[in-house]
């Protein structure tokens, strides 16, 4: 994660962090990323969904770790020392997203974003906000807030 190629495309207006899960690439808005850190063993939480790996200590705060692969409906991650945690801010909460590796920092404009094809299932439609085609790679843009809706608004 030390050397990210920064690409300057026309009229930069959005920065994204791209990461890999399995053979797929995803990206999220860099503004919601607080830091990226290595994997540490999490304390499992009882009665948690399978994609909640547990909680870790992030400088005194208790941070839940989400297995993004499982959350996106792919197979459960088997974390290794090479895995990384993207610490992301979502509304009022901070969560750690377990991914295989951070692959890129992208600077894009709205024109780079293609709509999500209609073939997608409900799950994909829920989180996918667009598709980026960069260097023959396909990168799926994820809306984190859509993936983990706010508890308060849910309860209300």
């Amino acid at each position, binding site marked *: 994660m030390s050397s990210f190629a920064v690409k300057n495309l026309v009229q930069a207006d959005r920065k994204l962090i791209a990461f890999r899960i399995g053979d797929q690439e995803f990206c999220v808005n860099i503004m919601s990323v607080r830091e990226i850190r290595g994997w540490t063993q999490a*304390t499992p939480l009882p009665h948690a969904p399978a994609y909640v790996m547990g*909680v870790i200590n992030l400088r005194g705060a*208790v941070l839940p770790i989400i297995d993004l692969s499982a959350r996106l409906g792919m197979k459960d991650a088997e974390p290794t020392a090479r895995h990384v945690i993207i610490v992301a801010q979502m509304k009022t909460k*901070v969560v750690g997203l377990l991914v295989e590796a951070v692959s890129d920092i992208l600077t894009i404009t709205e024109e780079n974003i293609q709509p999500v094809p209609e073939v997608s299932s409900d*799950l994909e439609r829920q989180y996918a906000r667009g598709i980026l085609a960069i260097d023959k790679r396909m990168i799926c843009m994820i809306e984190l807030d859509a993936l*983990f*809706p706010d508890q308060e608004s*849910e309860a209300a």
Partner: protein
Amino acid sequence: MDMNEIKEIFFQECEEQLAELESGLLKLNDGDRDPETVNAVFRAVHSIKGGAGAFGLDDLVSFAHVFETTLDCVRSNKLEPTPDVLKVMLKSADVLADLVSASRDGGGVDESRSRGLVKELEALAHGELPSSSAHEAPKPAPKAAPAPAPVAKAETPKPTDDSGFQPIPFSFDGFGEDEEPAIEGSVYEVSFKPRRELYSKGNEAALLLRDLSRLGEMSINCDTDALPPLDKMDPEASYFGWKISIRTTKSEDDIRAVFEFAEWDCDLEVKLAEEASSDEELPMVPVPFDLSILDDSSGGEEEKGAEQGVSEETVAAAVSAAETASNVSRAARAVEKKESAAAAAAAQNNAAAAAAAAGQTIRVDLDRVDRLINLVGELVINQAMLSQSVIENDATGTSAVNMGLEELQQLTREIQDSVMAIRAQPVKPVFQRMSRIVREVADMVGKSIRLVTEGENTEVDKTVIDKIAEPLTHMIRNAVDHGIESPEKREAAGKDPEGTIKLTAKHRSGRILIELADDGAGINRERVRQKAIDNDIIAADANLSDDEIDNLIFMAGFSTADKISDISGRGVGMDVVKRSIQALGGRISISSRPGYGSTFTMSLPLTLAVLDGMVVTVAGQTLVVPLTAIVETLQPEAAAIHSFGANQRLISIRNSFCPLVDVGRVLNYRATQANPVEGVALLVESEGGGQRALMVDAIQGQRQVVIKSLEANYTHVPGIAAATILGDGRVALILDVDAVVAASRGQSMKPEMSLAATG
């Protein structure tokens, strides 16, 4: 500090005054007739009004004004504070509180309610003052106090009434016109003769003449006829009078306004002069009034005045005479001032010290205290880790290091206690809020209920106070709505038609105990039982003790009211109350006697920041069990374990059987029950009454842990109260004993996941 900060302070102060007001009114309601109580109540409203006026909060001012007027009648014994009167006043206090909130947060208040109360308050004030009512009547509500305005130009002062103290706005608008002599305008003859009282009240003839001179062009004559020979002179007496002729565009009232502060202590005549004859009337040659004497006034005005008054002959003798006369006492003071100048510097420090001693509190931003508490929490952890590694590396236990460590441990504890004490606050404000709720809800349901509070000065951490208000409110509503019977039913049962709810707080073994007792009908166990069966909470043939039936009301989805009422319904039941108490690391239980009422008992930690816990291992995971929950720990022997039914196991402890609860199973850490003989049983007392033996694999030790919220970034986890960070940097979960026990009773522990948004 800017106005917004002061406004913030004002609202804080309002909260305090409202609390003072309510507790004072409640004391009066209990028959307290101490004049100081009435004064304090009056002051509270007065103070709110004063601040509100400064911020132009007109609605608040006008209501407070009417309220204050009526309170003043009580203060001056014109109005007897009967229960009926106090009822109106308590309601008014509620409305005042609403108006304060509305002023702070925006939004409105129920206008019909406040209007109605204004009428009632006015009626009270009138009722006792029939003769003078026309004069003394409070202002109608819409008439707010005038908003603070800059000194208005040419504002016509109200005519002085016979009291002589009608307020007259200052009309210093003449300032700007000093440069251009007023050619226009009329000439007034002013005759001014101070009495000695004028000086003794700190007024100054010279200053009054100075102010008068600002209204226009004036000439002045001093009448010194009354001045006795020096040896007969009383330094404090007033011997001079002045006749002034002034040409001004201002009115006679403006001229009188100059003497506003002094008019009681002088003979004053102001009349419009006949232009032509004005000169003739003055026996002496008019001398222009020279302001220069007074203009430079910073500091030694007395000395200067005295010197100049003698040397500058051109200056009106009148003025210097005025100076001299009024300065006889002042000069004396000046001498004293000089003498004491050196002492004053020292005394200054004393004064500052005195002021500091008098104000014994400081206001600190809560964040700073919290940061300190967090740091101390980390210190506690570090100290514990250090002790542990020293003990591990030095088994002798006699080294100086060990002794130092012990001292460190003690100091750490003391620091922690002191820091916690900073946040400790009496529960009083919360209790006071409850009395309002009792009043309102009782009113709504047509019951007559008295709230008695006890131990309201019991202190507990501020966060706990903040968080108990809501569940307590709900319980109070419940008690009023369901607990206490209607007056008719009570009378029929031979009870006082007025019900009583008693709210008590006390400390008990490191926790705070809050009891809410009503003298109502108690739990209708037959109905509760039936309801629980109807709602599939218990089996139709379940054999439950009275206590267990009573505690069914805490079950999710349970509501005893046949129809959900507006008051206590709101779609939440006692299960929500229980959950929020548990979220605080608290317990709640109920005991009830049919016909005599119910008592809810809440036990809460004194602080939410740290907890004494037992660190245990369950299925390879480290958990912390709150020490307060544990009655004893024991090593089960195979002979003591008895199977019971399909998959229950009991452990016999001193001839009684206690259900075994495998924590690992309840938390889903393992699929099959562990062998109790290989583990340790923690005997716990749950708030539902009855003991349970919690099976864990091993005990690691006891430790004070810093409580970290799981909810901050995640959500509530069933069976888990909170998290903490252990010495190795890992997160450990803190067990919610009551939830685990409840789950073992068969109550499902549904995961409620915010993050588990179903895809």
